[in-house]
Structures are given as structure tokens and as C-alpha cells.
């Protein structure tokens, strides 16, 4: 039975911003996304820009930081690591993470030319993440690495929090849950489409450690209203939803506290 007036702080921990090259994303700029957040009641969106993922990574990451600084507490950024430009890491990463608005790493091996997550050009990122306890969100889902790669990386870098993007839905929800339960540094990205699929959501509720799921929508690639409706109406225990919607994020993304303090 749902509580009559339960309210949730909602942090969308997996999102993007801006247009994309091969199809139309309505209302994709910061103001239009903010308008949608206000209407839905979403407090914060954590994003990597579409420019950084599938355009110029230098411009794209700068755009991410600029947007976050314009809207303190409403947008937080993930620095997109493009393995095709390994020289950028030493130049840029310390600079970006000196800003409190940048709270994590994002990688998209598939859209980075199918560069493997366990490839050489991601090694600096894993070491940096380990040293500074910075979460890495990696795309999966019809592209990207096998779960065995995530498992090996979790073992090799036990201090680097690694979030399995989209719950690796096409690779086996059950297997992904099992890995997240087993390895302290593996987390489950409860993002579209997994948060929209009845069976997958049920499995996550019943089998995953409740401290391991982080809610996200993949907006504007997906509609946040769809994910929000799906999870809100799931009938799942409100205490668990509270963890998914924000509690787990705040515990994992320790840098975010500084950004929210303002």
C-alpha cells in the first residue's frame, strides 16, 4: 500500500544533453530539460553531453561543465573519457575534477569506435577513479563489453566504483544482478530500458542488494516521464525506492555533497 503523501528526492544519475547526429531529440537543451525536471519534480540530473560522447570531446566536456555551473545543484556532470584521445587525460582530468560540479566519469566504448573497456587507453581512468573514489558509468546494452569484462575490471580495480550502464539488460539481468551483489565496487544502473521492463524491474527488486541500484533515465535519449511513472507505480517498497532515487547516489558519489552544499 503506498503512503498517501510520500515524496522522493529524485536524482537522475544517467542522462545526457544536447542534440544527437542521427535522430531528433525534442527539447534537448539545458533550459528545456530544466523545465521538464521542474514539472516532474526531479531535483537533479547528472549528465554527460551528447557532444562529448559523439562529437568533439573537448568542446563537449567543456559544455557539460558550463551548464553545471549555470545551474548549481540542478545539473551535475560526468567527464566523458574518449579513448581515441588518450593525450587529453593528463591535460584535462585533474582540471575538471577540481570543479565540484564534475562528480564522475562516463564512458561509451561502443560510440568510441568499439574501443574495449579493458583497453589500454582506459587504464589511467581506472587508476584515477581508484585513487579518488570516482564512479565510472559505462554504457552497455546492444553494444559495449561483456559482463566478464566488468567482472575482471572490478577485480583489478577494487577501489574504483563501476556502474554497469542500463543494467546490461541484453546480457542477462540476472547475471548482472549477481555480479553487483558479489563485488562491492559494482553497481547497477537502473536506467531505461531496464526500469521500464516489468520482469527486469521485478527481478531487480527481488534479487539485487537494495544499496546497489541507481536510478537514471537516459534522457533525452529516452523520456524521463516514462521511467518515472514506471518506477513510481511499481509498488516497490518506498524505503527501497528512496535508496534508488537518491540515497544510493549520495552515498556513492561523495563529491556531490560539495556541489549540493551551495
Amino acid at each position: 500500500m503506498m503512503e498517501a503523501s510520500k515524496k522522493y528526492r529524485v536524482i537522475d544519475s544517467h542522462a545526457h544533453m544536447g542534440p544527437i547526429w542521427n535522430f531528433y531529440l525534442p527539447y534537448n537543451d539545458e533550459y528545456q530539460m530544466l523545465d521538464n525536471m521542474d514539472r516532474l519534480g526531479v531535483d537533479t540530473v547528472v549528465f554527460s553531453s551528447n557532444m562529448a560522447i559523439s562529437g568533439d570531446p573537448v568542446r563537449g566536456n567543456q559544455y557539460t561543465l558550463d551548464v553545471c555551473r549555470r545551474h548549481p545543484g540542478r545539473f551535475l556532470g560526468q567527464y566523458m573519457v574518449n579513448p581515441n584521445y588518450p593525450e587529453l587525460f593528463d591535460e584535462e582530468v585533474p582540471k575538471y575534477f577540481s570543479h565540484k560540479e564534475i562528480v564522475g566519469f562516463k564512458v561509451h566504448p561502443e560510440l568510441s569506435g568499439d574501443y574495449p573497456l579493458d583497453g589500454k587507453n582506459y587504464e589511467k581512468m581506472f587508476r584515477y577513479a581508484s585513487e579518488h573514489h570516482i564512479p565510472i558509468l559505462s554504457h552497455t546494452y546492444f553494444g559495449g563489453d561483456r559482463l566478464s569484462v566488468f567482472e575482471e575490471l572490478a577485480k583489478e580495480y577494487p577501489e574504483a566504483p563501476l556502474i554497469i550502464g542500463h543494467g546490461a539488460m541484453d546480457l542477462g539481468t540476472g547475471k548482472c544482478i549477481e555480479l553487483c551483489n558479489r563485488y562491492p565496487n559494482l553497481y547497477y544502473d537502473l536506467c531505461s530500458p531496464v526500469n521500464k521492463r516489468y520482469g527486469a524491474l521485478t527481478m531487480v527488486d527481488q534479487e539485487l542488494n537494495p544499496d546497489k541500484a541507481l536510478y537514471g533515465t537516459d534522457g533525452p535519449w529516452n523520456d524521463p516521464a516514462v521511467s518515472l511513472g514506471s518506477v513510481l507505480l511499481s509498488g516497490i517498497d518506498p524505503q527501497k525506492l528512496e535508496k534508488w532515487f537518491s540515497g544510493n547516489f549520495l552515498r556513492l558519489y561523495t563529491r556531490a555533497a560539495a556541489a549540493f552544499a551551495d
Partner: protein
Amino acid sequence: MVEQNFTEKISALEFLDFAVSFGRPPVPFTGVWMDKERLLKELRRNHIAQSAPYHVLAKAYEANYGNNLLMEEIGDDRPEMIPTWVVVPSEEAMGCSPKAYVDQMEKEGIKAVRLFPSSTGNPAKATRYAFTKWFYGDYFEEFQRRHIPITVEFSPNRRDEPDWPKLYEVAKDFPKLDIILADGFQRTAWTLIKLLRECQNLYVQTSGLDVHRELEYMVNQVGAQRFIAGSKFPVSTIGTMVGQVTFANLSFEEKKLIAGDNARRIMGLPIKGGNL
């Protein structure tokens, strides 16, 4: 902050979920399947006023078999459940002429039919027949003549596009036939807008629109009358549909049309008044 309880808003919209199914499939998606009782329970839990189910085996096994099973299992749960049939539009497949098929539909109170033709991307999952006038023409003529709306659902792979020329062709060949396009229309807004503007007899099921504020955007382009709420439960949750419509930046009247009244209108069902 997001408020959990918005049941009043949901109830006021009088949802009719146009895309639900029940029955045990050969491969339950992510391990779940619904029988009729559990489906009804989930619909009621989500405050859905009505639904238009089909039987899984009508798609996954054989159309007539599944359609008959649907009728047995729905029983007295009407009008909360409005049965819809699956059809392979040929006399050889259905074992009767188009006229006899629609006669039977009318006798049983069936208000819409569904087609699951194969696409170029995934013929292993869908039913293989040529989606073209020389195949379906006699059945579609009968559906058009007797005002039976049809839903067309391809089974595209994630990055497939619909066969746009075929969709244009069927809409133009049967301009008085109401055709609901089910899924596979994510990320196709540019083309879909033009198609909808060209063909006024085309409708889009909400489950197929899923980029940022896409429902709002499409309504602003072509009007709320063109969209039919459908969840695809138990593949997707019912909450996906409810959230998409209820939270959309649209007027109450627009949402109510999409939530259920458009479906009721094209199926010739009564529409109740509603208020927020």
C-alpha cells in the same frame, strides 16, 4: 521532490490500455508472463479503467487458436476488458473469407484487430507474409468497409527503422481504415511527423514514442487525436504508459484523448465525461 501518489490524476484520465496481452508465451520476456487474473489485478492496481487485450498465443502460436482462447478466458470481464483479435490477413491463414471473419468478429463483439507482420530486421520473431496490397487487400477492404481499426506491429530490432514506404502505401490505399502503428518508432520523429501529416488515418501507440518529451512534441505537431495509449504490458510496465501521458506537458483534455478516448472513438465505444 516527486510525489508518489497521483492516483486521482490517473483515474480522471480514464485510461484504456490498448496494448496488453495475457497467456503463457514460449519465451517469457525477462521471465514473466500473465494470466488474465493477474493482468486484471495489475491494471486495477494502476487505476486503469479499461484494456484491450489479445492472447499471447494468437501471436506466438496460431491466430485462431489464440483468439478462441482469449474469448474463453475473458469470459464476463467485459467491458473492463475489450477483446481484440490477431489476424493474418489471408483466407488461407484464417480459414475463412474476410466477410465471414468480420461477421464473426461482430458477433463476438471484437472491436479491433492486430497484425504482426515481419519486418526486414526480425523475421524470426514476427509472422512472415508480404505486407502489401496484393496480400492483405481483401481483408483490409472488409475492415475499412466495416470500420474495424487495425494495429500493425512489426518486430524491429533495436536499430531498425519501420518500412516507411509500405506504411505510406497502406494508409493511402485504405484512407478510411484507421491504422494504429505500434512500436519501432523511437527516434524517428522527423519521418513520423511527415507521415502523420500526409495520412490522417494513421495513429501512433504511445509505447513507440520514447525520446525526451516526444509525446508532447508530436501532439504539438499533429494533434492529440492521433495517439493511443498502450503499455505493452507485461513486457513493459503499465506505469510507463501512465507516466508518459499523465506527466506530459499537455492539457487535461489532450491527455484524456490519448489516455483512452481516442481508442474508444475509433473502436466505436462510449466515451464518458471526465474532470480533474
